[in-house]
C-alpha cells in the first residue's frame, strides 16, 4: 500500500519466497501432509519389517531347499538395507503394487480391492448416522437450554460406550431377540448389504456421534451468548437472521472440525467393529493379518488408514481456511 513497502517489496519477496501466501498454502496443505504420510508409513514399514519372523519360511513352508530359500530372499529383497527396501515398497505402492501376502500368496492389492468397498459402505453409513444424529441432537442441545441437560447426559453416556460393547448389545437385542437384522456378515447386492451393515454402522457411530453432539451443542451454546450476537439482537435483527448468520455461521467452524475428525477416525473404528460382526472388510483383514504375522498386508492396510486420516484432516484444515477470514487473509 505505502510506497516504501512496494519499493523494497521485490527483493524482499524474492529473498523470503517461502513466505509468499501461495507457497505457504502449498506448504500447509500439500507438502506438510505428504511428509506426514511418508514419515508415518516409513515408521510403520520399518517397525514391521524389522520385527521378528521369517517371511521366507512363511511363503515356502518348512521343507523348502536352501537354494529356493536364498532365491526367495533375493526376490523379496530381504538383505537390502532398510531405506532401499522402503523406497522399493513406496515406488511399488505408488504403482498399485503393495507386495505379496504371506498367507494368501496373492498380491495385497487384490486382497484389498473387494474389501475396500465393504469398508467404504460401512464407514459411509456410519458417517451419515453420525452427522445426522450429531448435528440434530447437538443443535437441539445448543439452542434449547431446557433440553441441554438431557442431551448432554445422553452424549456423556454415549461417549462412554465403546464400539465393541455396543456391538454385543445390538446383536443381542436387534438380531437375536427381535430378529430384525442378521447377526453378522456383509451381505451381497445393494439392499442386502445395507441391511447387513445397519447394526455395524450403528455400533460404529455411537461413540463418535456422542462426541459430535457434545461439540455441536457446546459450539452453538457458546456462540449464542457471544457479545457480537448481543450486538445483532440489539439492532433488532430477527431471531432467525441472528441464528443463521451469526450463531450458526460461527459455530460451523468448530462443528466442521469435530465432524471431520470423527469421519477421519471411522476407518480405524472399523478395525474393531468389522471382526465383531464377521464383516470381511479392511479391518478384519488387518486383524487376521496381524494374528498371522502377514506383514505386507499389515503394512499396506495401516499405511492406507493413515493416508485416509491425513487426507481427511487436511481437507478439513482447508475447509477451515475457506470459512475463517482470519486464516484466509493472513494474520
Amino acid at each position, binding site marked *: 500500500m505505502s510506497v516504501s513497502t512496494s519499493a523494497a517489496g521485490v527483493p524482499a519477496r524474492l529473498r523470503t519466497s517461502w513466505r509468499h501466501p501461495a507457497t505457504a498454502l502449498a506448504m500447509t496443505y500439500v507438502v*506438510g501432509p505428504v511428509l*506426514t*504420510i511418508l*514419515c*508415518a508409513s516409513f*515408521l*510403520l514399514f520399518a*517397525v*514391521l519389517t524389522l*520385527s521378528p519372523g521369517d517371511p521366507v519360511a512363511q511363503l515356502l513352508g518348512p521343507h523348502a531347499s536352501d537354494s529356493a530359500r536364498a532365491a526367495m530372499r533375493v526376490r523379496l529383497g530381504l538383505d537390502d538395507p532398510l531405506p532401499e527396501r522402503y523406497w522399493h515398497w513406496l515406488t511399488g505402492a505408488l504403482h498399485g503394487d503393495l507386495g505379496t501376502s504371506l498367507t494368501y500368496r496373492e498380491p495385497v492389492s487384490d486382497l484389498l480391492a473387494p474389501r475396500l468397498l465393504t469398508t467404504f459402505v460401512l464407514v459411509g453409513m456410519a458417517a451419515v448416522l453420525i452427522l445426522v444424529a450429531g448435528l440434530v441432537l447437538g443443535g437441539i442441545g445448543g439452542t434449547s437450554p431446557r433440553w441441554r441437560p438431557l442431551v448432554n447426559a445422553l452424549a*456423556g*453416556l454415549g*461417549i*462412554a*460406550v*465403546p*464400539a*465393541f*460393547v455396543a456391538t*454385543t*448389545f445390538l*446383536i*443381542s437385542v436387534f438380531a*437375536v*431377540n427381535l430378529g430384525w437384522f442378521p*447377526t453378522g456378515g456383509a451381505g451381497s447386492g445393494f439392499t442386502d448389504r445395507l441391511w447387513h451393515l445397519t447394526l455395524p454402522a450403528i455400533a460404529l457411530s455411537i461413540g463418535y456421534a456422542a462426541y459430535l453432539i457434545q461439540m455441536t451443542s457446546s459450539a452453538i451454546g457458546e456462540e449464542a451468548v457471544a457479545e457480537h450476537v448481543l450486538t445483532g439482537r440489539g439492532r433488532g435483527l430477527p431471531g432467525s437472521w441472528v441464528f443463521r448468520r451469526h450463531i450458526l455461521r460461527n459455530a460451523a467452524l468448530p462443528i466442521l472440525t469435530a465432524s471431520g475428525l470423527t469421519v477421519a*477416525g471411522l*476407518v*480405524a*473404528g472399523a*478395525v*474393531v467393529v468389522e*471382526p*465383531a460382526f464377521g464383516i470381511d472388510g479392511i479391518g478384519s483383514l*488387518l*486383524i487376521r*493379518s*496381524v*494374528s498371522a*504375522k502377514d*506383514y505386507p498386508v*499389515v503394512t499396506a492396510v*495401516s499405511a492406507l*488408514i*493413515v493416508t485416509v*486420516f*491425513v487426507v481427511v*484432516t487436511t481437507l478439513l484444515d482447508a475447509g477451515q481456511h475457506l470459512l475463517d477470514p482470519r486464516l484466509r487473509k493472513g494474520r
Partner: protein
Amino acid sequence: MATLTATLRLRRMSTRRPGDPLLMVSAALAAGLVVLAVIGPWIAPYDPAATDVLAASQGPSGAHLFGTDSLGRDIFSRALTGARLSFAGPGIIVLGSAGLGTLLALAAAWHGGWVDRLLNRLLTLLFAIPGVLVAVVAAAVFGAGFWAPVLALTLVYTPYVARVVRSVAVRQRQLPYIEALQLAGLPTWRICLRHLLPNVAPIVLAQATIGFGSALMDFGAVSFLGLGMQPPTAEWGVMVADGRSEVLDGAVQQSMAAGLCIVISVVAFNVLGERLTQRFGGTR
C-alpha cells in the same frame, strides 16, 4: 518462594467453588472402583477360573449374582477379578503418557524455538496415526499380550497430554514470576520442577483422568480383538469377546456384565475429568 506458590495453589484448589456435587459423586465412584479393582481378586466369592459344567449359562441368581458363563464360571467373580487387569493397563498408560507428555511439554514451553517446533512436528505425526492402529501394529510386532498394547497406547496418549500441558505451560512461562525466579538466580531445573510443574499439575491431573476413561476403552478393544489379554484371563475386554458366542444363544449375562463394568467406569472417570477440568479452568 516455592512454599508460597504451593500454598497459594492449595488455597486456590480448596477454596474455589466448594460445592460441586457431580465432582463429589464421580470422585467417590471412581475411587470406589479403584478400591474394588485392587481388592477384587481377594473378595471374589468364587475362583474366577473354576469351571462347573453343571451350572453353565445360568442367569443371575442368589448364588451367582451375575449368572455363569458357558463353562459355568461365576461371572461376578470374573468381573471383580478382571477389574484389576482392566484398570492396571489404562493406569500404566495414563501414568506413562502423563509423565512423558508433561516432560516434553515443559521442555518445549521452556526452550521454545526449535525444540518447540520439533515437538510440534512429532505430535502432528503421532496424531496422524489412529490409536487402535498403533496398538494393533504393536501387537503384530511384539506379539499379543499385556505390554505391547499398553506401551503402544502410552505413546498414543502422550501427544494429547503434551498439547494441553504445553499451552498452559507456555502461558505460565510468560508470567513475570518466572522471570523473577530466573533473576533470583535459581537453576532452570529447579524453576521447572518447583514452580512450573506445580502450576500445570492440576491440568495434567484432569487430562489424565479423562485419558484413563479412553485408555480403558482402547485397552478393552485390543483385548476384545484377541490382540491383548488372552482367554481364559479374567479381563473385561476378553469377557465381552468370550460372551459373543453365548449372545447368539441368547445368554447375554457375560458380555453385558463386562460391558456395563466398562461403561460405568468410563462414565465415572469422564465426568470426574470434566469436572476437574472445569474447576482448574483448563481447555477441554
